[in-house]
């Protein structure tokens, strides 16, 4: 009896092992049929900007899941899964180059998605030499000028200020003060703002620049307020820094309008300083804030996936980036001819290829975003006329 039981168990085990083997082989064969496109995110996964890095990579991961779940990226008869990886570069240009090399040796990515200008700018010069497409969350004009055919800006530009400045003029504002940090994006933003404000008949009464690593802004803000501006404009400041600046501005008694450029999105600012201090702050609005069927559905999905998290445009833009690549690859019908892929994006990208409706046009290596003037009202970022 005992011998019988042992025999049955032994045969059962043998059958099980054989089944597992053949299942594994057949799965591997299926997997072999579906290729792999590696997509690497380089951004701040630690340090003071880690929250942004986490938000961006979360968007990319969801995009990869959605792309792979609907058959992957199709080139002719072959389908490719998008495999995503994240490497931490903090906010260091040197680390971004080191990690770029590490990613190339480990993963040979088709594309990099970089989380900020400090990572994007050093990598631009390597795109052709090392053979990768660079999708950059960078406002800096130099990212696309001079043009590198392998670099695509997937974010707002420093020039994206027009509707907001028009709104400020409609409010009767004439004199503005400009606050900038010493980093390239903020300096360029300030130059563009001065130029655009002047063309609209306004006056810049003062401009103050402070070191980019500052954490207290009382003195620069005091200096700016000494010029008696009616409103303050500041660009290149993500939410947390903008929140600190705004707090200092209000503590010093300034009641006028404050306009923050593209990097400041609103939710984190409201979380940090509350509705009252954030009330009336003007921001650069996109279709994300304006709303629409696709983006509203996506926002609902985001809220369900990340309850309580201040995720917003940064997440949505990161989510769009892999779809941008997908559109280019499928239109160009190649995974190796990089310039063909980025050139194809200009015709392939449209309202249908964009899952949220945000990235509906690519022109000269830049995603064209529809812009709207928005304000923070009652803790919410809402479009204004």
């Amino acid at each position, binding site marked *: 009896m005992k011998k019988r039981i042992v025999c049955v168990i032994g045969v059962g085990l043998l059958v099980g092992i054989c089944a597992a083997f053949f299942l594994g082989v057949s799965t591997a064969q299926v997997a072999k049929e579906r290729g792999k496109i590696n997509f690497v995110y380089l951004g701040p996964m630690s340090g003071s900007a880690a929250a942004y890095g986490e938000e961006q990579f979360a968007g990319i991961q969801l995009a990869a899941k959605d792309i792979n779940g609907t058959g992957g990226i199709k080139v002719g008869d072959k389908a490719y899964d998008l495999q995503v990886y994240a490497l931490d570069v903090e906010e260091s240009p040197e680390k971004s180059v080191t990690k770029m090399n590490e990613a190339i040796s480990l993963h040979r990515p088709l594309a990099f998605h970089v989380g900020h200008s400090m990572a994007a700018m050093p990598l631009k010069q390597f795109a052709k030499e090392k053979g990768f497409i660079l999708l950059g969350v960078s406002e800096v004009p130099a990212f696309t000028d001079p043009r590198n055919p392998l670099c695509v800006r997937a974010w707002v530009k420093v020039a994206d200020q027009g509707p907001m400045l028009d709104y400020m003029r409609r409010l009767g504002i004439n004199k503005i003060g400009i606050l900038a940090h010493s980093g390239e994006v903020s300096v360029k933003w300030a130059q563009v703002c001065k130029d655009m404000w002047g063309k609209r008949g306004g006056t810049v009464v003062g401009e103050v620049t402070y070191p980019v690593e500052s954490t*207290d802004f009382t*003195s620069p803000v005091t200096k700016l307020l000494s010029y008696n501006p009616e409103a303050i404009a500041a660009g290149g400041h993500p939410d947390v820094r903008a929140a600190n600046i705004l707090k200092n501005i209000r503590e010093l008694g300034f009641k006028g309008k404050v306009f923050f450029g593209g990097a400041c999105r609103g939710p984190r600012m409201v979380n*940090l300083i509350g509705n009252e201090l954030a009330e009336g702050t003007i921001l650069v609005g996109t279709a994300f804030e304006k709303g629409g069927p696709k983006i509203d559905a996506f926002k609902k999905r985001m809220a369900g996936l990340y309850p309580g998290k201040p995720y917003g445009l940064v997440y949505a833009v990161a989510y769009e980036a892999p779809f941008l690549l997908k559109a280019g690859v499928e239109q160009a019908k190649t995974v190796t001819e990089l310039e063909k892929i980025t050139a194809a994006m200009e015709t392939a990208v449209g309202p249908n290829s964009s899952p949220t409706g945000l990235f509906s046009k690519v022109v000269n290596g830049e995603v064209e975003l529809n812009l709207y003037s928005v304000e923070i009202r009652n803790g919410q970022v809402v479009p204004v006329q």
Partner: protein
Amino acid sequence: MSQYLINGLVLSSIYILVALGLTLVYSILDVPNFAHGELVMLGAYIGVFSLGIVGVTNYFLVLVISVLALAALGLFLEKFIFRPLRSAPPATMFIAALGLVYILQSTVQLIWGKEWLSLRSPFMGAIKLAGATVTYTRVFIFSLSCLLMILISLFVYRTWLGKGIRAVSQSESGAALVGINSNRMISLTFALSGALAGVAGILLGHVTFVFPAMGFSPLLRAFAIIIIGGMGSIPGAIIGGFFIGAIETLSVAVFSAEYADIFAFGALVLTLIIRPRGLMGKLE
């Protein structure tokens, strides 16, 4: 001009608290504790955590919790990390402190996440002082910092425990010969240093926001302050702190915010050239 001076005084007062904690430990170990900035950061996080539990109406309880928690942490770090390394070369303690920086930052990120947090102050409103607008929060920050500076000075120079700390900082073996328990004095110093870091963290959290890397900037400032004031000197740290604060804010007023660091660290270098021991030398 008064606005700039008041801005500078308030911020300097926080940096002086950080510098006092740093200089106390340096006076007794002869090695700067590079993890001190992380203790300030932890003070801020404990402030956020306890404010969430007890509410802003019990603000002083929040201060007490942070002080006690960081004092306890200071004792823990002294007993289990710095004491075993006291007989090792100074570089070992330096490296251990650096390691602590990464451990503490990563631990905080794991517990509280990567988002920046705000440490709301219970004091609302502002007053006009000599033409400058000052919030009640900043008045409180400056007042509390000055009070702590006075208390620490009195403690170190007027109490027998303070005398014991000074004796051990002069000579550990000499102190032992007269019956002073040097381990106990060193532990007390670390506890005091931690307590000061706890308060500094909360006060700094009102001025800026709370995030894992927030300790680096005040630590850098604190080092500049204790070098100018004299390593190990409490009066030197106080004078050095206000000196650097005044230079920074006046350089913003007269020139530009971009020159603040040039003038502040330029003053540091000049002081070291003229008086290498700093303004008031080592703790006696």
